[in-house]
């Protein structure tokens, strides 16, 4: 997956986790926690969804890398380079 495709994959996960959220105005540089009030349960879900959908493992010590869209895409890029769209 290319960075833009990874971003789209994350958007789809966020749509599932927070269906009432308007994601079109999401600021990629600002933390999810701040914009969407995601809590630790939601971050567990992002990790679980990545595992379920793309077989990508995110160890617990790396959860902090998933703070914002930019940091998430950057962190996942090497892990998802071989994942088919």
């Amino acid at each position, binding site marked *: 997956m290319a960075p833009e495709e990874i971003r789209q994959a994350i958007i789809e996960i966020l749509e599932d986790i927070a269906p009432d959220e308007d994601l079109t105005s999401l600021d990629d540089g600002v933390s999810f926690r701040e914009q969407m009030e995601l*809590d630790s349960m939601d971050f567990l879900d992002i990790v679980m969804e990545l595992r*379920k959908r793309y077989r990508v493992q995110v160890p617990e010590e790396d959860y902090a890398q998933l703070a914002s869209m930019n940091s998430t895409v950057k962190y996942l890029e090497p892990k998802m380079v071989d994942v088919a769209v």
Partner: protein
Amino acid sequence: MSQPLSQTEQEPHDQSQTDSASSTDASLPMYDTVIIGAGMSGIAAGIRLAYYDQRVCILEKHTTIGGLNSFYRLNRRDYDVGLHAVTNFTEKGAKKGPFSRILRQLRFKWEDFGLAPQRRSRIAFPGINLNFDNNIDYLTSEIRREFPHCIDRWQNLLAGITDYDDLDQTAFEISARERLNETLGDPLLINMLLCPLMWYGNPREHDMAWGQFCIMFRSIFLEGFARPHRGVRLILKNLIKKFRGLGGELKLRHGVAKILTEDGTAVGVELENGNRIHCKRILSSAGLVETLRMCDATSEPDPRLAGQMSFIESISVLDKQPQELGFDETIVFFNDSNDFHWTPPAEGLCDVRTGVICSPNNYVYDAAEGKLPEGIMRLTTIASFDRWDELDEAAYRREKLRWYDRSLESCVRFVPDFRQNVIDMDMFTPTTIRRFTWHDNGAVYGAPDKILDGTTYIPNVFLCGTDQGFVGIIGAMMSGISMANLHCLKD
């Protein structure tokens, strides 16, 4: 995690493997997680695990789902077993609070729970009332009117509760009465605040853990009451539909007799019919004492540890809407003296000095849904499990009618007298509660001491439900979700 173990891995645990070709219960496959109890907590946990592709099976002793929050049909009328109100109500779009968290975690839309907010409720003591609704400012204005000398202290208390950290186990155990004496000072105000919070979620006698107080305070005063027009069946129906849609299995009439262990680790369960089911871990909503009893047949845990607070509840069907009788409130918590006694009855079958009266008619339902077809008044008072349990069949029937009359007589001191308008009635007692929940003593809010992290002495047996710490419908679901997340998903 999502793959069932292969046949060879399963074999050492299972004496019944030789029967496997016959595909009876005895040859059931290996599950990732077996959940004991199809109440709100068990089903919510099941949804989480099934969603992430676990093989999960819920075993329910009873013939129906829901546990304490079940429903039934009698004389062509629908009844809810325990529901007065769903607490923790927040409006659509709210991002904070347990309700929105549950919706996200279980992938529900706000509309799926069909919640209509309460109209108005009241704490009624002799000669003094505090009204409240789902906006805390209303209660604050009531306290300003009745307890003007306490208003600054009240504001401080509010700030403290907002800051309370749910997960802080040390602060949890502080005495709520002591803490309130320090912060508020006024004994009558303290009793009036404790009354609804104890009624809706205190397993402990006399006093309440500070942590439990804060959780209940938020869920009732800062968030609020609501109810689906169709009652608890709507919530249960949607939960179980989702669970099954994700491939989860539910087995009714499957009581667990024993948790099977090998070298200190659980390997499965033995059912009351003797069949065995194997699994990697067990999440039990049966209660702490009740679960431990399944683990080890040689030691009998003291059932008193399971909690003593139990109730009778009557459901009166009226020939009119309660509003036509001048009753437009949702819930009234009454107490007939300035002292508030939260203990099992010292003598007799019930203590009717305090109680809760609730009308499911008095919620603000959507115009499209309309009014409920008939007027309903639910009345709950404190009862002794042991004394109800001792009665023979004839005495049980007689006492039910006697205490129905006595409890109504007590409550009409605080609400309009509806006794001439009753056209049908059903009633449950502590023994009914035990039959539905299988909890010792018919304890509605479980054990006085909570196991917040849900662990037991067996490393792969975990608790969810009332004895893990959260009560009420929302609390139960939250418990199932958080224990599933913490103990069953991260491997």
